């Protein structure tokens, strides 16, 4: 019991942790305890926080105007004059563009997942709780969307509707609804038949109140863990759409778009051209690592 303060490897099972920390009682306290003692997750969580802060305070932090072009200072290397990370093909400051680019990348990474979580989660809970024909209709429609690899589905919808950030958001939301729905449905079906739900129904609980008080609590953890893993996928897909000219439109700074416009310059200044990809990689990797940490801390098997 005395070693409760030593760092706990993230893979430790629940039994081991109970022995380590006798004070931990509730599920969420336990999750919090495990996360606080998981240095890897904490580190990548800090990276995410850093990116979020950069996105929020971009106007204050960015040294220059991200859309200010310069005919003389085009494709300058890292550290040229006061351009910390060089300039792009139109002579715009890369540092400022990378900082501003965090905005659209985070937005496109988080929003579709949040929307899909709400819509898909609701559909899944309804399908799972009501069952029968409703379940069949909802889940068979979801199955159709499973027939597309995610990037193909996103490209199909965005490609037909045309470019732009809003269309990108819509197509990515549609991509993530089916998996969220399936996970929520599975979790709901598992809980629905259990005694305590039966008891709630027997004591006169209405459908709405049973779902809110008894079902949601059990559906939330797996759906949330799954959603956290999807953020990284969403960032990659969104930057891919922008790269194809389907997402964010120029001159808005966006990492995927920057990769696309800088591609012509790889012979002249390869390092600077690779920078936006590094930004995408760091952000997506951090979300993946935090999601893994959350899954272990919340003890969810997907």
């Amino acid at each position, binding site marked *: 019991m005395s070693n409760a303060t030593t760092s706990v490897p993230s893979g430790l099972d629940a039994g081991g942790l109970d022995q380590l920390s006798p004070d931990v009682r509730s599920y969420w306290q336990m999750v919090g305890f495990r996360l606080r003692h998981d240095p890897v997750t904490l580190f990548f969580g800090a990276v995410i926080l850093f990116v979020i802060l950069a996105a929020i305070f971009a106007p204050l932090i960015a040294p220059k105007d991200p859309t200010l072009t310069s005919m003389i200072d085009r494709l300058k290397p890292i550290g040229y004059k006061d351009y910390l990370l060089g300039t792009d093909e139109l002579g715009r400051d890369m540092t400022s563009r990378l900082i501003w680019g965090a905005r659209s990348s985070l937005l496109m990474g988080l929003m579709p997942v949040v929307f899909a979580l709400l819509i898909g989660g609701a559909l899944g809970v309804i399908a799972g709780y009501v069952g029968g024909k409703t379940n069949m209709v909802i889940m*068979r*429609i979801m*199955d*159709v*969307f*499973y*027939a*597309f*690899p*995610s*990037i*193909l589905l996103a*490209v*199909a*919808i965005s*490609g*037909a*509707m*045309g470019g732009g950030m809003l269309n990108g958001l819509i197509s990515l939301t549609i991509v993530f609804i089916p998996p969220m729905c399936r996970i929520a449905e599975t979790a709901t079906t598992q809980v629905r038949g259990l005694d305590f739900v039966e008891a709630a129904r027997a004591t006169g609980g209405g459908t709405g109140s049973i779902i809110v008080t008894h079902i949601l609590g059990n559906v939330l953890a797996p759906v949330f863990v799954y959603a956290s893993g999807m953020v*990284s996928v969403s960032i*990659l897909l969104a*930057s*891919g759409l922008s*790269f*194809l*000219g*389907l997402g964010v439109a120029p001159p808005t700074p966006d990492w*995927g778009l920057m*990769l696309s416009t800088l*591609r012509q310059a*790889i*012979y002249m200044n*390869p390092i600077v*051209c*690779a920078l*936006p*990809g590094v930004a*995408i*990689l760091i952000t*997506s*990797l951090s979300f*993946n*690592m935090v999601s*893994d940490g959350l899954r272990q801390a919340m003890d969810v098997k997907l």
Partner: protein
Amino acid sequence: MLNYILRRVAYAIPISLGVTIFCFALVYLAPGDPLTRLLPDDATAETIALIKAAYGFDKPIPIQYLNWLGRALTGDLGQSIQTNRAVADEVLIALGNTIIISTAAVILAFTLAFVMGTVAAYYNGGVADRVATSVSVLGVSIPNYWFGIVLIIIFAVNLRWLPATGMGPGGSEGFSIWEWSSVKFAILPVLTMAMVPIGIIMRSTRSAVSEVLSQDFVQTLRAKGMGEAAVLRHAVRNALPGVLAVMGLQFGYLMGGSILIETIFTWPGTGSLLNQAILNRDIPVLQGTILVLALIFVMTNLAVDILQTAVDPRIKRG
């Protein structure tokens, strides 16, 4: 067994129908009347009506769908607005080129990932395990088209070992997998494409092999004096069917998701075709390519499922 296969095939039919409905609906997702793109600006009301009837746009939407489906089933996917060539022909040529790189990528990924995953599972928690786990997380976190750009920078721009883009002077017809002069064009796209499946196959190999290694029969094997190499062979054999299934699914993803990589390397496959269709707002090509790719994805999943049932006698699906 046969029963299961039949049911599984029957299940794929409504899914495929759903896919065709989705692809048909893509035309209506596109902003504006699909007709206006075909008409000159000064078309009279009569001309419009005439062309509407000729293309079948005057009929109710369900009838239009059935007509379209009937034509699609006989291999008529319409005409490209850009080139006026039959969409089916264009898709077919492109498909061959995509199959070349995705097959090579999935074989490469499987070979590397299976070995690394097995080693990682055997030395659970060791250095090899950590390296393998890091590589697999990187594989799914990396924007693979960016990885392609980095490979071009290193191997084409700096070292000048390999060509950066294209499929060689002969194009699709001149390409031969037995000649270095063509193969060198495929190397960078294949490496880039293999990145994601390496991560995913490695992860599933690691968990499958370590699950087998933790089972009682492995203890028995060791207790009766079997060498470690032979024990490992048992574990690998047991883990193989599941991992092969993952590999099959990955092949489907690569086939359908090749757009970014083919765009980077201007590899003339289905992905490049899609990209061109998007740039030119060529909806028939977009629609036809997506339909074919999605149906291939459905078929791949079906084949993987059936093969897995056939190979693994433990799976008894009623």
